[in-house]
Structures are given as structure tokens and as C-alpha cells.
């Protein structure tokens, strides 16, 4: 494992000067991920914040080859690039050892791009798909997605007079990807860079399709101060809202266990999107949300042989 100092010395593939918001966790996740790559990479990017803010023609923030096709097809597109690589490498027309990484937000991954992702994973292309999950369609102005947590106030699941934010629980995409029986699946958080970089290395070298779900707080949508992206990520992990684990060839393994599991409200309280839940009449929602986290955590511990 490289030290943080060593990683910091590696050249940045996503260069500064891109137009993502100050304090956005998406580029933090991307930079941590790319630090783990030891070969040239080709990036596929779904439509979303990361895409629109890094390649406004005639400029690009990417110091590597990069392709954006549309919103829902980053996985299919990159699977085509990987097929070209296989074919041309076999013919001796491409010499370099190249890795393929797709980035999509939760909109492009959990929702509109789920079919394309499922297809690419099932076909076993040698590529890593990374979802940077900020829990809503942030690029179009904070609309709910199937990754939005229950209770969150978004512009299409507003906290109103009779409805208290999103009524549904989030989709467990990481488990869905694990159910594809691909060689490598993991969940990561930018607050735990060491864990993240280690997992990306495994993903890139697994010899087949890999999926990583990365928490990427959006201070606009979560309504937190712009410099608290890493802190809130840590709270997501320590409350077990966003556990860190990996599934290697079907084997589930917890990679980080909080010494003390913090109550969920510590993650919710600092976020403006959950403000309405702290009214006395909504106490039952907080209680139910805690129960959901507890149930999911117990299930995960069991899967990982820790319960």
C-alpha cells in the first residue's frame, strides 16, 4: 500500500481548473480512484455533473482519453471501447496495456443506466464501473433518484404539508451488482482513501468486470457547508448508513468496522435536506430510518460472516 505522500506525487489525470463546484466530492472520488491506476486509462463518462463540468468544448480537464456518449449508456459505450481494445490488441494494432473506467452518477447508474450497466457486467468486459453516488439528480437541480435516502427533501420529493420528503427507501445497488457474480464489487467512501485506493487496485486487476459504488456528497443537495464533504462521508460510514465492504468472487467481506456504531441522526442532523425530520411530529420517521439502517447492517454482518 502506497502512502498518502507517495500517492500525492503521482500525476493528476483530472487536472485542476474543471468547473465542478468547490467542495464537490465527485472530483475527490475521481482523483483518489485514478491514483490507484498504474497503467494508462480510458474513461467513459455518463452525462452528469462530472461530464458537463470537465469537458466544455474546446477544453478538457482530462489528461487521458475520454468518451461521453449519452446519459444512460456509459457502460455500453465503454464495453464497446473495451471490445475494440481486445480486437486491436489481438491483431497487434494496439500495444499498450490499458484499463477502462466508467464514471456515472446515481442517476446514470441506479436509474436510467441500470440496464446498460447490467448488460456490460453480465458480458464480463474487463472494465471498472464507478458510480459516484450523491443521492439525487444534482446536475439538473436536486431531483430524487432511487439512491436518494428516505426522508430527503429534493425538488421532486419535497418536504411538503402532507409528505415529508422521499417516502421510499433507497435501492441497494451494490448488492444488485454483487448478484451479477462478477469478480469484484465494492463500496467506498472518500473519507477512507486507503480503503478506496486498495479496492480500486483490486478492481482494476480482477481480470473482468468490476463495480465500485462511491459515496460522493453534494453540498448543494445535502445542504452542508462546502468544506464538510469528507466529514459527512465519515459520518455516513460510522453510522453504518454507508458501510465499507467488498465482494470478491462472491465472497462478502467487511473492510471497515466502526469501533462504535454512531446513531444515524449524527449523519442526518448536519444536512439541511433532513431538517424537517427533526420536527417532533416526524420523530417516527427518524426511528424507522434508524431501524432500516440497523436491519441492513445486521444483514451485511451476516453476509460477511461477522454476526
Amino acid at each position, binding site marked *: 500500500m502506497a502512502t498518502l505522500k507517495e500517492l500525492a506525487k503521482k500525476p493528476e489525470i483530472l487536472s485542476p481548473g474543471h468547473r465542478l463546484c468547490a467542495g464537490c466530492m465527485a472530483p475527490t472520488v475521481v482523483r483518489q480512484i485514478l491514483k490507484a491506476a498504474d497503467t494508462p486509462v480510458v474513461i467513459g463518462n455518463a452525462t452528469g455533473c462530472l461530464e458537463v463540468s470537465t469537458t466544455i468544448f*474546446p477544453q478538457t480537464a482530462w489528461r487521458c482519453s475520454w*468518451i461521453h*456518449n449519452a446519459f444512460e449508456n456509459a457502460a455500453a459505450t465503454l464495453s464497446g471501447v*473495451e471490445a475494440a481494445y481486445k480486437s486491436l490488441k489481438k491483431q497487434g494494432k494496439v500495444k499498450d496495456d490499458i484499463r477502462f473506467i466508467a464514471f456515472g452518477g446515481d442517476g446514470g447508474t441506479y436509474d436510467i443506466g441500470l440496464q446498460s450497466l447490467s448488460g456490460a457486467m453480465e458480458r464480463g468486459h474487463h472494465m471498472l464501473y464507478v458510480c459516484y453516488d450523491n443521492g439525487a439528480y444534482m446536475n439538473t437541480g436536486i431531483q430524487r433518484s432511487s439512491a436518494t435516502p428516505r426522508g430527503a427533501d429534493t425538488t421532486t420529493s419535497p418536504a411538503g404539508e402532507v409528505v415529508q420528503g422521499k417516502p421510499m427507501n433507497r435501492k441497494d445497488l451494490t448488492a444488485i451488482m454483487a448478484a451479477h457474480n462478477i469478480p469484484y464489487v465494492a463500496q467506498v467512501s472518500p473519507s477512507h482513501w486507503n480503503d478506496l485506493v486498495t479496492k480500486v487496485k483490486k478492481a482494476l486487476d480482477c481480470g473482468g468486470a468490476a463495480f465500485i459504488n462511491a459515496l460522493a456528497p453534494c453540498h448543494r443537495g445535502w445542504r452542508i457547508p462546502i468544506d464538510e464533504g469528507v466529514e459527512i462521508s465519515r459520518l455516513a460510514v460510522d453510522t453504518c448508513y454507508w458501510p465499507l465492504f467488498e465482494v470478491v468472487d462472491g465472497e462478502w467481506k467487511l473492510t471497515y468496522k466502526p469501533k462504535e456504531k454512531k446513531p444515524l441522526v449524527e449523519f442526518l442532523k448536519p444536512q439541511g435536506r433532513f431538517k424537517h425530520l427533526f420536527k417532533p411530529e416526524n420523530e417516527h420517521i427518524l426511528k424507522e430510518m434508524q431501524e432500516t439502517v440497523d436491519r441492513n447492517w445486521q444483514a451485511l454482518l451476516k453476509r460477511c460472516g461477522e454476526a
Partner: protein
Amino acid sequence: MGEKKALTGNEAVALAMKQIEPDVVAAYPITPQTDIVQYYSSYVADGKVKTEMVTVESEHSAMSATVGAAAGGARSMTATSSQGLALMWEIVYITSSARLPIVMPVVNRALSGPINIHCDHSDTMGARDSGWIQIYSESVQEAYDNMIQAVRIAEHPDVQLPVMVCQDGFITSHGLENAEILDDATVKTFVGEYKPRFTLLDPDKPVTFGALDLQNYYFEHKRAQAEAMKRSGKVILDVAREYKKLTGREYGYFEKYRLDDAEVAVVAINSTAGTAKVVVDELRQAGSKVGLLKPRVFRPFPYKEIADALKHVKVIAVMDRADSFNAFGGPVFNEIRSAMYECPAPKVISYIYGLGGRDVGTADVTKVYDHLLAINKTGKVDSLLNYLGVRE
């Protein structure tokens, strides 16, 4: 020169693909294109081609993966029909805008709804403004020949645009005809090795595909795309001339059949043109001066050449196997009529026919010619927009 073989349209197209041997094929089966994907899968399974085959989960992904492969510098193909083309729609436009020289056989089938699996041209006619070159094929032979020429057209440095090679679902795709097939080496030499201008797979020269293009650049890129389409006209004729040297078979923007001294004429694409030729011969024998124009290239639309070929004709019926639902005739009709605007006032009427695979025989086409001859006699267009062979 070549070898005569009895082939269906789908077999011929799959065989052309095998001989071209693209680096990547990403495709999804759909009636009536399915055979093409099946044949190609067998070629891959039997090691007869070096192609990397991506058996995607939908046509949206078929087009998306083909775009990715082409951006990766691979000669790349897919194939589809009807709903498949409709599902690809979003990426069909992105393909031409990214200037990726992808060749896609399309086996024409009616679009839903109601659901129907048989031939009409509503699928590709809907895609006529997507920025793809469109080439239509009357027969199995033409479908084969057009596939091979399409590669050269698409990849030409002056063009760099995707090409659809269209043939009629079931009528041509499943109809057995004798076709002359070139040997593999001849096809390989004709299409040559693909040398992409840009590739994602050269780490020393990183490239960005699909950047966000705002008010200050988008229009210039679309303008350049329009110019490439315009330039493709000459390339299409150059490639056809070269192909003729190889095969003796002549191709151009369109085929004229007994048209030069015709007083009335029908315009029809794909297999119906074959039916119309039989009717033309019969009516000529009976002393009527009738002819046919069969467009082969619909995109780019060779408006000058078409007007020139039709300008002496007094009454023209444009037969469309797709309706525009504009209450003003089919898509081919509208463009032909517009092309004739500066000609000395020929009468041009619209016939919509054969939707959802409704059979169109010589008796039906004879009715169209009879209508034209009647207009020619009276000098009056009694009905501008007509539907052929439908219960009303």
C-alpha cells in the same frame, strides 16, 4: 468475376460483413434482421472472422457499444430493424455527430404501433434527418453490393459519416435470389485497412469524444456535418465507379428504367421498384410511354440530378412505403416534389402503399400507372394524395 450463389438478403449482408471482417460487431436480434446476427455469431464461433462480437442487451446498447468501438479506432458495425432502430434513436444522432464511419444494415420493417413485423419504410424514413447516409437496395444483389461500397463511403476522409444500408424486410431479407458474390480477397482489397483519424486507444495522443458543446461551437460542428453530407455525394459516385470496374455492375444516385422518353413515371425505392419494372415493360408493350426512377441514395438527397432525370416527365407518382402523417403525402414524395420546383411544372402526386407489409403486386402498381396516364390525358390532377390497396 464473382461466384453466383442463391442467397437471402440477410445471408448476403452477413456474408458481406464476413468478407469486410470488421474489428467489432455489437448487435441485438430483431425480426426480420435476426439472421444477420445469427450468421455473424456463427462466423465468430467457428473462428472464420477475427471480429470481437458484443452481444448486447438492447439496441440502445448495440448502437452505444458500436460508437465506443468506433471511437476506439475499430471498424465497427451493427444491424437492426424497426423498433430496434427506434430504440437506438438517441445514439443514431450522436453517431453521425461524432463523425464515426459505422455501417449499419437496416432491414426495413414497420414501426409499432400497432405492432407488425413486416415491411414498410417507416423505420428508416423516420431517421432520414439523423445525419446518416442512407442507401436503399432493390434486391439481394444490391444489398450485398451496397454493403461493400458503404464501408468505403463512410470511411472516406471527406465524409466520415455513418451509413445505413436498407433492404425490404422479408421480401428481400428472406427472399432467395441469385447473387454474384466476390471472393474474400477482392472485398478485402476493395475496402482496405481501416485507419482511424482519432482513437481512444493511443495513450500518447489522448482524445476527448463527446464534449459539451455550447452556443459558441455547436452550430459550427453541425455546419461541418452538413458539409460532410454534401461532400459524400461525389464520394458515393467515385466508389460506385470503382466498384463497377470490379463487378461490371453500375450504381449511382438512382436507377432510371425506361425513363428517358417516358411521359409518366413512378418513383419507388427498394423491392417495389422491381415490381414496377415488370409493369413498365407490360405497359410499354401496350404502347404507353411509362418509366421508373428508383432512388438508391436518399441521404444525401440528390435533388439536382433527380430533377434533371424527371424534368421531361409530365406526370409523376412518388410511391412511399411510409406515411408522414402530415396530410401532405409521404417523405419521398415531399422531397421529390420540392426538387421539381424549378422544372416546367410536372404534376407530382403521392401514393402511400404497402404499410405493415401489405402486399403490392403488379396489378396494384398498374393502377398507379393508369392513374398517371389518365391525368396525362385530362391534364387534371383529380387526387394529389392517394393510398394504394387499403380498405377505406
